[in-house]
C-alpha cells in the first residue's frame, strides 16, 4: 500500500526537489515523499538519509523536522493535519527561523554514584542529595554559560554510569561559532569534564508548543 512520508513543515512555497513533494496551505507547507507503508527498519543508513533531506530543507529556510518514519495515508490526510494545527505550526516555525540546534553531551567520568547494594533509608537520602548537588554543579558550571548564548535550551542530567549532561540548545545561526568557542572554553576550564558539541542540527528539540522562549 502506498503512503506519504513526512519530512517536515516549512514556509510556503516549499523548497522541494529530488522527488520531494509538498502540500501547501496558507503560509505553510508539509514536505513529503511518496513511500511504501509498513514498517521500515530504523537503520543507521535510514536515519542519516532522513537527516540529509531535513538538512537540505534547512538550507532553504526554517523547518520543523518530523519525527523519523512519520507516515500518513495520503496527501489529503496531511493537508487536514496542516489545517488543524496551522496556528501551532506557524508559531513554532517563526520561533526557529534563522536558528539551529546544537547538541552538547558532557560526562564527568570521575563522578560516579556510590555502590547501591543493601542501601539503607539514610544512604538513599544521602545519595539523592549527592545526585542533586551533582546536577546543580553540572547545570551551574556548564549549562548556564551555554544557555546564556542560546535562545532556548533543554537538558537532562544522568547520574550513571557517571554524571553526564545531555543538552540541546537553540542558537541564532550567527551565534553558532560563539557557542562552540564557549563550549571549548568550558571544556578546558571545568575540571574532569569531557565534552562533545555536535551540530548544527535542524531544531528537532524545539518544534512544539512546550517550547518556551
Amino acid at each position: 500500500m502506498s503512503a506519504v512520508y513526512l519530512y517536515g513543515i516549512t514556509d510556503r512555497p516549499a523548497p522541494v526537489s529530488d522527488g520531494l513533494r509538498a502540500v501547501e496551505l496558507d503560509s505553510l507547507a508539509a514536505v513529503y515523499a511518496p513511500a511504501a507503508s509498513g514498517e521500515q527498519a530504523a537503520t543507521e543508513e535510514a536515519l542519516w538519509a532522513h537527516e540529509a533531506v531535513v538538512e537540505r530543507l534547512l538550507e532553504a529556510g526554517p523547518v520543523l523536522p518530523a519525527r523519523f518514519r512519520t507516515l500518513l495515508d495520503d496527501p489529503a490526510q496531511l493537508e487536514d493535519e496542516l489545517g488543524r494545527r496551522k496556528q501551532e505550526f506557524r508559531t513554532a516555525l517563526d520561533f526557529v527561523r534563522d536558528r539551529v540546534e546544537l547538541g552538547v553531551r558532557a560526562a564527568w567520568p570521575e563522578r560516579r554514584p556510590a555502590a547501591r547494594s543493601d542501601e539503607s533509608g539514610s544512604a538513599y537520602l544521602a545519595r539523592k542529595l549527592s545526585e542533586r548537588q551533582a546536577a546543580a554543579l553540572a547545570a551551574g558550571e556548564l549549562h548556564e554559560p551555554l544557555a546564556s548564548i542560546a535562545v532556548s535550551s533543554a537538558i537532562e542530567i544522568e547520574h550513571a554510569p557517571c554524571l553526564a549532561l545531555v543538552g540541546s540548545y537553540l542558537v541564532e545561526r550567527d551565534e553558532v561559532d560563539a557557542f562552540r568557542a564557549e563550549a571549548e572554553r568550558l571544556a578546558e576550564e571545568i575540571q574532569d569534564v569531557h565534552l562533545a558539541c555536535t551540530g548544527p542540527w535542524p531544531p528537532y528539540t524545539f518544534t512544539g508548543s512546550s517550547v518556551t522562549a
Partner: protein
Amino acid sequence: MTSTQLEATDNVALVELVDRLLAKGVVVYGDVTIAVADIDLIQVGLRALLSSVETLEREP
C-alpha cells in the same frame, strides 16, 4: 584526529542523531507508524553512548 578519536566523534554523532530522530521532532497524528521494531539500533545507540564516554575517558 586519530582513528580512535574519529570513531568516538562518529559514535557521539550517531547517538545524538538517534535521540533526535526517534524521540523528538514534530509528531503528526494521522496514520503514524514509527518503526520501533528495530531494537538493535537502540542498543547500538546505548553501546555507542557508553563507548563514547569510555573513549572520552581515555583521552588525556
